[in-house]
């Protein structure tokens, strides 16, 4: 799984940090998303998918790598 974030779209809601704190953080100065791990390990995938699903600004994009289960 490859994760990417769109800082322009990000509205700083912080729901990704709550869902997947190992993968997402927020900048202290404005709350914009920080991607800690663009290729998270398998055990984090469910949390990352939840983060992408609940992002109010649709600022998180997931690309599934070849051969990976979705």
């Amino acid at each position, binding site marked *: 799984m490859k994760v990417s974030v769109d800082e322009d*779209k990000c*509205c700083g*809601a*912080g729901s990704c940090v*709550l869902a997947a*704190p190992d993968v997402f953080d927020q900048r*202290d100065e404005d709350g914009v998303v920080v991607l800690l791990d663009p290729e998270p390990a398998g055990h984090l995938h469910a949390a990352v998918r939840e983060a992408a*699903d*609940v992002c109010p600004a649709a600022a998180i994009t997931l690309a599934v790598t070849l051969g990976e289960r979705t």
Partner: protein
Amino acid sequence: MALGDTDHELLYPIPSPAALEPPAQWAELRQGCPVAHVRLPSGDRASLLTRYDDVKQVLSDPRFTRNLDAPDAARIAANESGGVFNSGLGNALPEEHHQQWRRMVGKWFTAKRMTALRPGIEAMAERLVDGMVASGAPADLKAALGFPLPVWVICDMLGVPESDRDRFAYWSNTLLSLTRYTQAEIDAAQAEFAGYMSAHIAATRAEPGDDLISELIAAAAGAGHVMPDEALLATSQGLLVAGHETTANMIGKMVGMLLADRTRWDALVADPSLVRTAVEEALRADANPGFGIPRYITEDVEVGGAVVPRGTTVVCNLAAANRDEDAFADAAGMDLARTPNAHLAFGAGAHSCLGQSLARTELQAVLDVLLRRLPTLELAVPAAELERVDGLVVGGLRELPVRW
């Protein structure tokens, strides 16, 4: 001719049969009339959206603006000014300034900061529960806990002293009125609030503290300009009207929904790790969140397979969207472990609720404290006898009688 057709105009908001239940018309509209013609309390017309996909699309599309003071935009409220949605302070900043403002204030609402605030919020909730328990059962949980807690939190954030919390509660209540207060009362509350905050802002400039106002003043100074009083006033008022009544009512409704079916409360007592997802599910299932989110368009846009003409005011009914069976399995029920739960209770897109992480933190803190302190909590009246508050932009229960 069907519900919501041009010839069969609905009055909006649509009344509900029971305090915690949605009106039956929502399901009919989602199914048969996703863009419905409605008449607002002001008498003006608007288009009502009830489907999840449509509501999410509109809220995420900047062509649907917040410019409800456009000459042909619908006025919402029955009173002269149109209420908070049509007021000057409720008006839209230009999009580029909105993002700047949002990011400046956003640092106050990061997940990390919320984690830091959580113990303080739990301590406030403990103190309020102590007071409720000391007065004895039955008690009104809304008055004893739900209503004071968020205003305490906001007053703390603004650096407002404890002794002024009651005045803030009154102003907040009045500024959100659709029909309950007269225009004169609303204007007076607005003026009093502005007067109080102007003095408070001046005092904060002279003697900065560890609060949001001080922080905004310092951030502007760091960037080489002066944060105008009007911007600080608008921010304070925004926090109060957006963050008080909404969360206060949600505390009452959440606890009400969880107690209305005792198996829900018992499940949480048995496994408090469900608190996070239970809060999200209560937000989704809330059938009475209030008016919804109005938007105004200046060009023709397709929504739900129909063209919505320019000049239309659309009203996004978040609660109807949150009960859309096409978006949520068993949408009418409550699944306290539902994951993911991409509900729209906080809106969507660039203007989705700025304070959503704070609201979540307050709701989780309240629920944690109640489960710990009062595991035997129960409704003191049958759920069917709970009553709604009318006349406010934000929906809630009149009171939540409980015993333990």
